[in-house]
Structure formats: C-alpha cells, structure tokens
C-alpha cells in the first residue's frame, strides 16, 4: 500500500522539482519589487520607492508613460495589421479559387518555418531606403510582416473549420464574396480572431529585437528597449527598481496569461514557431 502511494507520488515530486526554478524566480520577481533590498530569497524591509519611476522620470531616461504609450501603440497597431491582413489572406487561401493559390499556400508554410531573424540586416537597409528607420511605423510594418505567415496559417485553419454549407447559403441568399466573408464567415470565427489578437498583442508587447535594432532615438523606444538600457545602467545598483519596472512591463502579459491560456495553448499548437 505504502509502496503504491510512493509510486504515484513520484511523478508529482519530479515535476515539482524541475518546475521549482520557474516558481521560485517569478515569486522572487514579485517580492523583490516591494523590498528595500534582497539577498537571495530573503527580503529586507518593505518599500514602495521601487515604484518611484511611475511619478518621477529616471535619470537620463525618457518618461515611462511616453514609452508605455509607444509600446501600447506598437502592440495594438501590429495586432490590427496582422489580424486584419491575415484574416483576408487566410480566407482567400482557405476558400477562394485563384491561379497561384497552391503556390501561395506553400509560400506561407515555408515562410512560417523560415527564421526571419536572419533577414534583419537586409531589413535595416530597406527601412533606411524607405526613410522608415528609427520610426515606430517602420518597426510596426516589419513586425506585422514577419508575423504574417504564422497569422495567415492560423487564420486559414479557423476558416477551414467553418462549414461550407453556410458559405453556399450566403451566396445563394444574395451575398457577394466580400459580404459573405465580412458578415457571415468572420462572425463565426470570432473566438479564433480573439485568440490570434491576444497572441499578436502579447508578441508585439514583448518584442525586443526589432525595436532594439531599428529604434535609436530615446523617444521612440518601447518598454523592452528601456529595460535593456536599464539593465546596462542599473544592473549592479538597484535591483528593486529593475524588478518594479519589469513587473510593470509584464502585467498585461500575466493578465492575459492567467485568463486566456487555453486560447493561447491552441495557437501554440496550431501555429508552430519555436
């Protein structure tokens, strides 16, 4: 009896041990932002002063609110572009007859597996050519484009699951193809669109490499760039401040993570990008 119990407990124990680093470090992140000082997992004294960046600008740094607004704008516009364009492209690839459809489908799949970070050097050059280097718009376009194959592929999957009968019925009832798409099909994949939107938003909100490489002026930064600079300046000085800024940055991420993880899980399984 006892042996059996131990046997069933083994997997739980194993999982707890290998998952411990994650639990501990995230717990510590939270704790540390309210502590005067921490040594390992031991906090010393409670304080709110780590959160002072919310009301006073940090030395040599732009206002946190300006940067937050940038990040929000970046994430939102990327989401709208990516989801909107993917919804159109995914529909065409899933549902329309046109020459080159198979070619486009293969291309989407290839690009979806293709490591886009290898293109950054050339993209840098293109952005300069288009006079979009060091502009939020430029980075937005790049981010939306690089995410497009994945988004399109996921969207196509959602469209594939809508019944053909409904679409035929709409055509017979008097819809054009545009109207069918907009008034009949899109309302039926709302959950899918919501999931992709959250995914796109989080991916935009968290993006580091693109803004870091393509945004140089101070006022164009996003939160990730700001924090990267803060790591450079404060790394060995003020852990509390860094944890507080970090926590501030990941609040929306954690929020969506807690409330919508099943949706996101579906996207991760549907669209595979490691």
């Amino acid at each position: 009896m006892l042996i059996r119990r131990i046997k069933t407990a083994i997997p739980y124990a194993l999982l707890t041990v290998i998952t411990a680093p994650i639990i501990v470090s995230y717990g510590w992140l939270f704790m540390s932002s309210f502590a005067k000082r921490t040594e390992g997992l031991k906090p010393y004294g409670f304080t709110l002063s780590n959160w002072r960046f919310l009301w006073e600008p940090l030395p040599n740094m732009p206002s946190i609110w300006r940067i937050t607004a940038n990040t929000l704008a970046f994430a939102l516009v990327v989401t709208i572009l990516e989801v909107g364009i993917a919804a159109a492209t995914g529909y065409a690839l899933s549902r329309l007859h046109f020459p080159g459809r198979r070619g486009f489908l293969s291309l989407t799949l290839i690009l979806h597996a293709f490591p886009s970070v290898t293109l950054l050097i050339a993209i840098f050059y293109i952005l300069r050519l288009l006079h979009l280097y060091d502009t939020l718009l430029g980075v937005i376009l790049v981010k939306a484009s690089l995410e497009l194959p994945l988004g399109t592929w996921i969207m196509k999957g959602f469209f594939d699951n809508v019944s053909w009968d409904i679409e035929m019925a709409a055509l017979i009832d008097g819809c054009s193809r545009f109207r069918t798409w907009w008034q009949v099909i899109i309302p039926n994949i709302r959950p899918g669109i919501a999931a992709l939107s959250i995914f796109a938003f989080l991916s935009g909100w968290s993006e580091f490499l693109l803004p870091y490489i393509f945004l140089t002026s101070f006022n164009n930064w996003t939160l990730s760039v700001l924090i990267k600079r803060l790591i450079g300046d404060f790394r060995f000085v003020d852990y509390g401040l860094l944890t507080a800024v970090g926590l501030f940055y990941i609040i929306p991420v954690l929020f969506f993570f807690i409330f919508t993880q099943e949706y996101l899980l579906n996207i991760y399984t549907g669209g595979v990008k490691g």
Partner: protein
Amino acid sequence: MATEAAIYKAVPRPSLWERIRTSSAPWVFMAPATVMIFLFFFLPVVLTIYISMTNMSVATFGKVVFIGLQNYIRMLKSRWTVKILTNTGFYVLTTLSCFNVGLALILSLLTTHINERVGTLFRTLWLLPRITPSVIYALLWIWVTADAPYGIVNQFLSPFGIEPRNWMNAQPWLVVIMANGFVGASFGMIIFTSAIKSIPEDYIRAAMVDGASTLQRIRYVILPMIRWPILFVLTYQTLSLLTSFEYILLLTDGGPGFYRTEVWALHAYHRALSNYFGNVQFGYGAALAAVLVVIGIIASILYLRVFRFNELVAEPKIEAL
C-alpha cells in the same frame, strides 16, 4: 442545337464593373499580404545575398563596391570561424537534446501520467518562460545567477560548501543553454502532449493487460507512436536554435571574454548591426547571415515536403466568385 455564342447572346451579361469586381476578389484579399511579404521577406532574401557581395559598411555607405565572393572567402579564412562554428554546434546540439526534446519529453510524459488538472497546471507554468518578454526573462536569469549576496543559486549552493560566484561569468554556457532550454522545452511539451493524448487508449490498456511496466509502456508503446512528432520537433527546433540569438544577446552578448558564447547568428548581428567593434560591416555580416538564410530556405522546403503538404491539397468547394 444553337451555338454557344447564340445561347449566351440571349442572356444579359453582367456589367463590366460587376465582372471586374467579382473576378478580382481573390487579388484584393491577397494584395496587402503580397506587398508586405514582398517588402520584408522576398526583398530581404535577395538583398542579403546582394549585400553579402559588396563591401558595404558605415565607412563605404556612399560608394558601395561589388566585390563578389570576397566576404565569403574572408569568412572561410577567418580564424574565428572555427571557434564560432564549434560554439554554434555545441549550443544547438546540447540545448536540443537536453531540453527542447529531452526535457520536453519528460514533461509531457509526466504531466500526462498524473491527474489531468494538475498536469495542465504544470504545463501552464512551463509556458511562463515562453510568454515572458525576453528582456524580463533574461533579467531573471541574471539575478538568479548573480554574485553573493544577491544570487539565488549561490544561496542554495552555499550550504553545500560551494564557493559563491557569478555563475553567468563562471559557467556562461550552462546558463545560456538552460535559459534557452527552459523556453524551448515548452514547444516540444505541447506537441508531444497532444500526440500522447491522441494515442488510442486501447493500446495502453492492451500493454497493461500484457503486463508491461510503466517504463516498458513508454518504451514500447508511447515512444514509437510519437516518433513523427519527435522528428518534427527535432528538425523544427534545430532551425530555430541555429538562427536565434535574442537570449544570448541579452544574457552574455557573446562573452564573457572574447567570443566565449558567440554563435553564428549572433556573430552576423554583431558584425552588421552593432557598434560593438566600432566598425559596422554590412557586407561581411550579410555574408554570415546569407549562410543561415540558405540553410533556412532549404530546411523549410524540406519540412514542407516531409510534414505538411497533403494537408493543403484540399480544393475550395465553391467555384463561383
């Protein structure tokens, strides 16, 4: 029977505008994506190859000269190439085998073995590193591995008599591989979990009736049945690891010291896009990147052939536009 022309003449044809509107539908749907993919995928691929054959750098921006394969020859001759290649191979193979496939398998086997809801909870926790913004994730590792008295690792190890130290500097590879592995494991975990869950219960039951132990069930039933997902994760993640450098950039930036943890993709970035060396060499960086671009194209075409192609053969069921 009347001729075709005569038959059609009897019917009012839709107006030209109507015909354009209906037959152009697919192109309107496809246009935005086409432009964006052209601008930021197609053009960059071509440009990467082109730039790699020039001497383009900050110094030469105005007067770019075509220099053929000189950058590639320089790459072959560079004394750092071997070092960086070894680094890259070590990094990819270790992370892949220990974490992206190894740990992923362990996690999916364990979480499907136990109570469903607890299993889901653990899988959710393992998604945290993936979903955390990379700067914050890197920050966590920097703190965890920090020198005494701040670092958590030191706090845990000091009772065992291990000298406190900055682990990022002492064991950079260990930290880099673990940090990447903790993110990478969740990908395989998700894929394997859904594969394991879709194994028909009857096989497992049959094995149990035949008296197989848990480990034997895993070895003889589950693993053979998920070999395709394993192969998929293996190949897919190889390409991912080969080309990604974000976490390494944030954790060690290729250091400590000279090229200790510099991998190929990071090297290309350093050469072309960072001021680290004082001289930004687009041409040489592009040549380094072009190698990866070519590998990426070949690999993704291979995936297409091996894994997914049949899925997209289905034709639309409506022919009217």
